């Protein structure tokens, strides 16, 4: 089961997070939850909407970049945040992602807001295999 941890010492004004997953599917799903955790208290997200996202890129790290960028886009364009995510990744190339997300609109009365994620950066950006599966490091611009 994946986990994420906020990291200090590589970003002063922004939010650095390290994500570990048992496999690529787990890592991508966990990365989505880490992003949600930056923006809101995930336990306060209403689970009333289901979305499916499909992406294709030339490399795995760009797939992760595009995946998180898509979730940030949905937060602004449709005011949607997600509490449950399942992902399936085909390493490729081309690299493909098919994901199912469950969440709901940001409700200012009930959603506990945190920081507004602006973008995924390439600062110290990494995605690599590790002893326990896969590991990623992402810095989100706040």
């Amino acid at each position: 089961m994946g986990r994420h941890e906020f990291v200090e010492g590589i970003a002063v004004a922004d939010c650095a997070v390290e994500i570990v997953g048992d496999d690529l599917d787990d890592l991508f799903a966990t990365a989505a939850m880490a992003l949600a955790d930056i923006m809101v208290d995930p336990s306060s997200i209403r689970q009333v909407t289901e979305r499916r996202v499909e992406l294709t890129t030339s490399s795995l790290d760009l797939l992760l970049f595009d995946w998180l960028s898509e979730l940030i886009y949905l937060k602004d364009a449709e005011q949607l945040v997600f509490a449950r995510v399942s992902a399936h990744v085909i390493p490729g190339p081309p690299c493909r992602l098919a994901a199912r997300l469950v969440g709901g609109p940001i409700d200012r009365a009930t959603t506990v807001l945190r920081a507004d994620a602006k973008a995924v950066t390439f600062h110290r950006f990494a995605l690599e295999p590790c002893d326990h599966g896969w590991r990623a490091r992402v810095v989100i611009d706040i």
Partner: protein
Amino acid sequence: MKTIPVSECVWEIPTSEKPGMRVPARIYASEALLSRMDEGVFEQVTNVACLPGIVRAALCMPDGHWGYGFPIGGVAAFRADTGVISPGGIGFDINCGMRILKTNLSEAEVRPRLTELVDALFESVPSGVGSRGFVRLSTDGLREVLREGAGWCVRHGYGWPEDLEATEGGGCMPGADPEQVSDRAITRGRDQLGTLGSGNHYLEIQVVPPGGIHDPQVAKAFGIEQPGQVLVMLHCGSRGFGHQIGTDYLRKFDQVMRSYGITARDRELACAPFRSPEGQAYFGAMTAAANAAFANRQVITHRVREVCGRVFGKDPRDLGLEVIYDVCHNTAKLEHHTVEGESVHLVVHRKGATRSFGPNAPDVPARYREVGQPVIIGGSMETGSALMVGTAHAMKETFGSTAHGAGRTMSRAQAKRRVWGETLIEQMAVRGIVVRAASKSGVAEEAGFAYKNLDEVVDAVHRLDISRRVVSLTPIGSIKG
């Protein structure tokens, strides 16, 4: 990394310190500020010095700290004919900037209604994650905003004509090309005009403290007459629209950079030749986002006037709610500067750095031409901000640039471990600062102890003569995202 003192508060990292450096790096800071700068500043400013077409030196202002690509506080000028443009030298929040309005109200007049005022502003100026503004725009309508900037707002009743003269570049950067903007950026940003965002963005009610006027003549030129005068300051940018343009072009430049034979020492410094199709496309889109940011601050100004008029039962004009100035601190601008005795057309990147144009410089509004442009240095929400003025020396030394704020010294996670947001709001209330925030944890992240001492930054730029101290400002009310 070796830093060589050049003069008081100027430190140079020579090209010998890193392979590929085309010019030296220069850090502008007191010895104390320099000693506390994180290692990332040195790494990043020397990476910038490796980019093609850079002239004179890669610079970092006294509020510099670790960013992504450029350090925050970074300034670099590239030849327009042979140099590059890099989204990492501008930031995702294109034309993040500051605006300050004066009032003719005193603290004594505002205090009895301060809570009502802050509550009303919090209601009228949406802040925080996923907030939407009150202006509803079609796609074509947004494209008009992108071409016209703050002028669109004035044309539609969201401002006064004189606001434009008091905005950097008249509130509209030339060269905006909405055709270079993705549909995703349009969709993402269409409903966000008039919103504050979160993080370090704010809308503050401020007061000139006793002894806070350091240069009475320039202060008077800016419309500030005496201690106790109340002002309104806001800090925000182009919101999701600009963030999406930054994402789109970072992604694009990451792929095309190699086709131009350019290698960057940091992937976040992905760039393209300024004159290339990709460079010109980004410049057109980035400029559109800069105009969206001007419009955003203009719409918020309109809301501030509406709220103040309602709370104090007067016409906003009778309250003297005039814009003193509006400055950008995340842009790339085409400017002429003198380099080795020759006037050169440059793409000046400022990331977390403010223009500081001196007397009689181009683009300084007629009303400030004799004294120089107002420079707004935003501090933390606890400790206050500063209004300074641009100098002729900045034009020679830093491409007309200076600091933009206090500069962070502590990560957001560290700050949250030191204080609870609710506790900090209560502590600030005891000190007479009313805070309303969309996110309580966001308040903790922005605690004063997470930032450098603003006085040290202001003192450094004043000693460097890249801007001069005019007025200190203290917050009494704060809206946070």
